[in-house]
């Protein structure tokens, strides 16, 4: 875990790089040259099935060259330098700011939040650092509950004392320390409504777990925190998303990272994350009422078609791709809430235990196969004795 001393040293290094960068600009201008700024491009996936790709290697896939020769470049440079100036100030004064705060410093120049986001990404690539190193943090969108206790700096997050109470995900993940957990698995849910359903159903009492939500597309702290928990606790992590293109995309964001922050994917992705549901086949298996099944729109179909071409689906999770194709084939989608149509507690009492049991079985078999020896499953029929489910 990165402590204060490490953070300070990273700040000093960043300040040095910013100075070096500025000196380079001035030197070019002094010599009557246009500054040439090379920004490496990264991608978390490609759609070229025919050639062997290196998307998972974390290596750059190309570079962009910014000069004073094109208006779009100069505008991008203008925004980037303004953001860099703000960041330099944050680092020098050891303060933090959000992306939105930065946007509101020059809204008429930035025009759009996306310009600031892009500038931050450019700066991270140029300075070879992560966004949190720039002292830019988001307000914190994620929520966590369950069998865990930790500190963020001096602040304690004592979730374990009331496991069904929602806590915000820590923003300064690098300052998280002293994690104590007796959880057997981590459950990531796409939406806050599902998170609240599980809290109401006292799901963490029945299942010794940690539940996390990024409330839609997860922000950086949520993804970093999940990554930290998986790295530190060595327990299984499952993901529950709506059975629609957006849910699937959110799932892949957790597991493989987003395209926008592909340069930092190695610190944000969670390759251990397993897709728990909802699968297209779950609609029949768990008797989702027909009125809860919505037809895929043309846009949904277009998104699915585009997603199924992603290289990582083919190389790493071909079974996900099959589910995606099944979704397209069935032509319907449904939300997690559809499981509550019959009884409110169906999700926490029936669906999740069943799915987790299945997943654990699969994981166990894989582990056994890896060990090359047979093993007896602890998981029994009916209600699951969670205390026996931890597989280490």
């Amino acid at each position, binding site marked *: 875990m990165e402590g204060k001393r490490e953070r300070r040293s990273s700040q000093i290094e960043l*300040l040095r790089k*910013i*100075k070096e960068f*500025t*000196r380079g*600009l*001035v*030197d070019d*201008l*002094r010599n*009557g*040259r*246009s500054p040439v700024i090379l920004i490496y491009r990264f991608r978390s996936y490609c759609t070229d099935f025919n050639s062997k790709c290196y998307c998972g290697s974390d290596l750059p896939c190309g570079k962009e060259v910014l000069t*004073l*020769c*094109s*208006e779009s470049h*100069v*505008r991008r*440079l*203008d925004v980037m*330098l*303004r953001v*860099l*100036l703000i960041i*330099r*100030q944050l680092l*020098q004064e050891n303060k933090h700011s959000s992306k939105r705060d930065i946007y509101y410093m020059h809204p008429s*120049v930035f025009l759009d939040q996306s310009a600031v986001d892009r500038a931050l990404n450019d700066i991270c690539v140029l300075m070879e650092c992560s966004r949190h190193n720039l002292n830019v943090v988001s307000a914190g969108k994620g929520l966590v509950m369950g069998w865990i206790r930790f500190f963020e700096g001096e602040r304690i997050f004592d979730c374990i004392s009331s496991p069904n109470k929602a806590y915000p995900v820590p923003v300064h993940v690098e300052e998280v320390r002293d994690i104590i957990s007796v959880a057997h698995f981590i459950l990531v849910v796409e939406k806050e409504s599902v998170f609240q359903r599980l809290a109401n159903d006292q799901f963490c009492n029945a299942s010794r777990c940690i539940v996390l939500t990024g409330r839609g597309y997860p922000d950086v702290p949520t993804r970093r925190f999940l990554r930290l928990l998986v790295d530190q606790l060595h327990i299984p992590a499952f993901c529950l998303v709506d059975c629609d293109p957006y849910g699937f995309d959110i799932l892949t964001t957790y597991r493989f990272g987003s395209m926008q922050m592909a340069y930092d994917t190695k610190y944000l992705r969670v390759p251990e994350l397993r897709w728990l549901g909802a699968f297209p086949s779950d609609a029949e298996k768990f008797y989702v009422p027909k009125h809860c099944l919505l037809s895929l729109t043309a846009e949904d179909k277009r998104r699915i078609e585009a997603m199924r071409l992603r290289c990582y689906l083919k190389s790493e999770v071909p079974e996900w791709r099959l589910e995606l194709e099944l979704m397209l084939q069935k032509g319907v989608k449904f939300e997690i809430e559809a499981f509550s149509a019959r009884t409110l507690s169906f999700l926490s009492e029936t669906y999740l235990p069943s799915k987790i049991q299945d997943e654990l079985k699969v994981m166990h078999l894989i582990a056994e196969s890896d060990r090359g020896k047979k093993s007896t499953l602890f998981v029994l029929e009916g209600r699951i004795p969670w205390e026996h489910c931890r597989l280490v």
Partner: protein
Amino acid sequence: MEFSSVNTLCFHLISSAFQRCRLSEQICRLSVILNSSSSSRHPSVQISISDTGIGSCLKEFQDLKFSWGGITENWDGMLRVNTTSISDTEVYNYQISLKENRSSRRINRLPSHQKNGAKFSGTEVLLSFVESLDILLAGVHSFLQKMLILRIPNIAIQLVAEDCDVPGSRYEKVFLANKSMQSPILALNLEHLKSGFEQYILTHGNSLNSECSSCFPSWEHLKVGSGRACCTENELVMEAVIVISDISKDDNTCLRESGDKTEVLYFKDFSPSTIPQSSMKAMKSVHWRKYGLNLVGIAQQDGCALLEWENLPKDTHIYIVLHSYHQQYPTVIRTPGKKFQMDRNLVKRSIKLSLDDLKEKHAGALLSARATKICSYAPDLGKTIAGLILTSNDLEFQGECLSLLGLQSQGVEAEIVENRIKERIVSVIEMNDKKDQKTREAAPFLFDDNRLREEEFQEIDEEEDYDMMALED
């Protein structure tokens, strides 16, 4: 060469006299004398156009063509020509009737006069026709005033007009091209044209005796560019001069007739002339946008082209003059079809060279629309980079950067640093803009071959005509 009015024929004869003077490369006088008698029943004007230039070869009169539709009563078609070359021992006198067809036209030789060993050369052409003296005088005056733009330094032009029946009616004016001359006699015609055109602008069309001080308090600030394109095959030359002035219009009492539009003056063989269609087309197809200019309209008015611009800065005015001439005298006329294309290519090329020349000489002038947009970011970039330097808590770094910018590290104001960086950025953008243009143009002129050049012209034309489709619509 065909003429439809006696006035235009007179202008041509003055122009020929001017050419003979020019080619003599000696100090030369050109006199235009208009005499009338208001008391006579049919008030006619007798015109004498005389010069001390090289003698005339009669071919130029042989080739003249006059269309007689409806004006036969004004003039009898007779020209009287007296001419001698420096090597001749006598002055030859001729009479030519332009009423006769060119093919059957006879030149009547009249008795000559002995020069008695005197060494001189010159020509006098006389004709007489029915016209108001005032109207003819005004036309010739305006014509000669425009000729001053050419500023051929060895020629003095005298204009005399008199009504013999009105005592004291004699009018006399001398047009001297070499007033406050800056270019030597043997300088290129283009240099003379540049200097003459500047003078023309500064004196509001040569109508003032000196530069207009209210419009041009500092006339050195005129931005001038010139270009010369030629076709070696027929020695046809096209010269262009482009001038950009920045005049504050708010407190300017001298209003131009053409307003913000650009009046393009056209000279053909050293004579003010109506701009031909080929040149109009050529100007349409110039890639003005490369120079930050947006041409939105082109029209012909009183023999000149009027170019209408969009988004021209409020105080900026553009002036253009074109001069097309043959190096040979008298001129060799090529087949019209090919000539049209060649004229067009030469106009485009000469304008382009003038724009490049102006851009090269004047920093910040004629930046392409793209470069202008890029430059608009320079103040912001300057401010931000200055911020990155000045708000750093590393004084050594600050000092180093300021020193790179050629500034003192002690107590320098932020604004000075911002401006210095901004200037450097603008300078880089301007340089890139020039470099871009040169890079794009380098390929067509790898070989200095006339034929190749013309082919390239053709290609560029086709390409750029596409850009102008909207304008034509």
